[in-house]
């Protein structure tokens, strides 16, 4: 049913339809509305689930780890500092191969404290073993939650999934979204059937101490499973499309790239703005396009290669930094083409929208304008030089 909803409420409604047995979270802007709505649903008797109040994100992640280990579908959500406070537990969840689903309302990282949107929180956890999906709009965000649970609980996957949605822009934005029926959701997402669980009748130890004899193989197994996920996501997306009528490739989305000479690569809500600019420039006869990355982990290098191999100039927009090195997304797109015969003549790297700085249509037009013969390395779009001084005094 189509409803006019705030992003956080839409996510809460879809999580409710997934029927997690345990929810645990700690409030943090801009994520709070999601779990606030879920807590309300439980209090109102609309959702039969246990909401565990905790004193920190570290504990919230630990609760969902424990619940998932006990064989219960579990859910948590956080942002920014909260995600970082969860970090060691998130590595444990992935290492213990538990299918937790987490919503990350993307927000900048302190210091200086900033509650607005960029991707530094999720991107900093790219090495944790979690599958990381990025949503462009609210509809996509809720659809990705369904795909997330289905993927995470697949017996050949058993990895946690983080659904990233841009803080405020998507969590607090209001959009008409199609909320599926309980029947549709149950057709796509069967009840959780744990492959292993903590059970006193059949005791096991999860995450025991392993020495150098065993550790490498635990990491190798996650690496190989992440590679398998690249094949599983498109399959699940096709199944999703049959039931819900919306079609995603699941790994990437190509927007007017077929004959494009200049293409922007981006993740998250900025893709909507880029699409508008692409449409405007296409009317003027410019051959421009967008490549949206939906799955950041696993990184769909083969799909990106196919999409961009005949494009002459590529711009990668990063809303996060790896301070002291190349931008995270740009370096991986560049690595995709290293040593390949067919490749863009230039892959330029742009930093946009840090700490909630608006990425306007003019900013995107500026990026397309800068895609000339000269490759741009780590160009900060809309930088304000007047705020910078070489010396403190």
């Amino acid at each position: 049913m189509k409803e006019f909803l705030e992003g956080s409420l839409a996510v809460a409604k879809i999580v409710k339809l997934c029927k997690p047995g345990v929810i645990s979270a700690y409030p943090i802007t801009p994520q709070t509305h999601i779990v606030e709505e879920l807590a309300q649903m439980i209090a109102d008797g609309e959702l039969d689930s246990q909401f565990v109040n905790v004193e920190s994100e570290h504990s919230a992640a630990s609760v969902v780890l424990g619940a998932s280990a006990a064989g219960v579908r579990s859910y948590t959500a956080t942002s920014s500092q909260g995600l970082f406070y969860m970090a060691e537990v998130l590595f444990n969840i992935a290492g213990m191969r538990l299918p937790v689903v987490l919503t990350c309302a993307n927000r900048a990282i302190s210091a200086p404290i900033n509650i607005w949107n960029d991707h530094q929180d999720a991107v900093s956890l790219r090495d944790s073993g979690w599958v990381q999906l990025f949503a462009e709009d609210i509809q996509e965000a809720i659809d990705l939650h369904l795909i997330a649970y289905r993927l995470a609980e697949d017996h050949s996957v058993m990895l946690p999934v983080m659904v990233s949605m841009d803080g405020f822009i998507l969590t607090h934005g209001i959009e008409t979204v199609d909320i599926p029926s309980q029947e549709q959701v149950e057709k796509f997402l069967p009840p959780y059937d744990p492959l292993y669980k903590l059970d006193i009748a059949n005791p096991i130890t999860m995450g025991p101490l392993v020495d150098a004899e065993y550790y490498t193989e635990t990491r190798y197994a996650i690496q190989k499973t992440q590679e398998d996920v690249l094949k599983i996501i498109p399959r699940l997306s096709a199944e999703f499309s049959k039931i819900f009528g919306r079609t995603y490739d699941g790994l990437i989305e190509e927007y007017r790239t077929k004959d494009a000479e200049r293409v922007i690569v981006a993740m998250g809500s900025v893709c909507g703005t880029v699409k508008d600019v692409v449409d405007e420039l296409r009317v003027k006869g410019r051959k421009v396009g967008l490549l949206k990355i939906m799955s950041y982990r696993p990184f769909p290098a083969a799909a990106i290669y196919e999409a961009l191999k005949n494009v002459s100039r590529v711009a990668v927009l990063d809303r996060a930094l790896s301070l002291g090195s190349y931008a995270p997304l740009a370096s991986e797109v560049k690595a995709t083409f290293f040593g390949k015969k067919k490749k863009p003549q230039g892959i330029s790297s742009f930093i946009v929208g840090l700490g909630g700085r608006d990425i306007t249509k003019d900013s995107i037009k500026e990026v397309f304008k800068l895609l000339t013969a000269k490759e741009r390395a780590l160009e900060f779009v809309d930088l304000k030089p007047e705020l910078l001084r070489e010396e403190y005094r």
Partner: protein
Amino acid sequence: MFGPLICKPGSSRNNKTGSWRTELKPKFLRKNCIGCKMCVLVCPENCIEGSEKNTYTCDYAFCKGCGTCAMICPKQDVVMIKEEEPLEAPKDNPQQ
């Protein structure tokens, strides 16, 4: 794909963790032992066995060399020796 991440109970005997032992190991002298079993009770690895006086020994495949048995022995009949030192004189036990 899955790695070795879940253990069934009772599998700890398979891992010969005595390879982690510190540079000392206990030597059971079996001279003044009174069979009080204190060494058995305090051993954190539960790897000391024996029943009568002067019959106690430990399983070096699991002993970590913590020295608690030597510390607790009321007759100082357990001593800690260096890892490379033989437990018995070579003539008594040619295998050592």
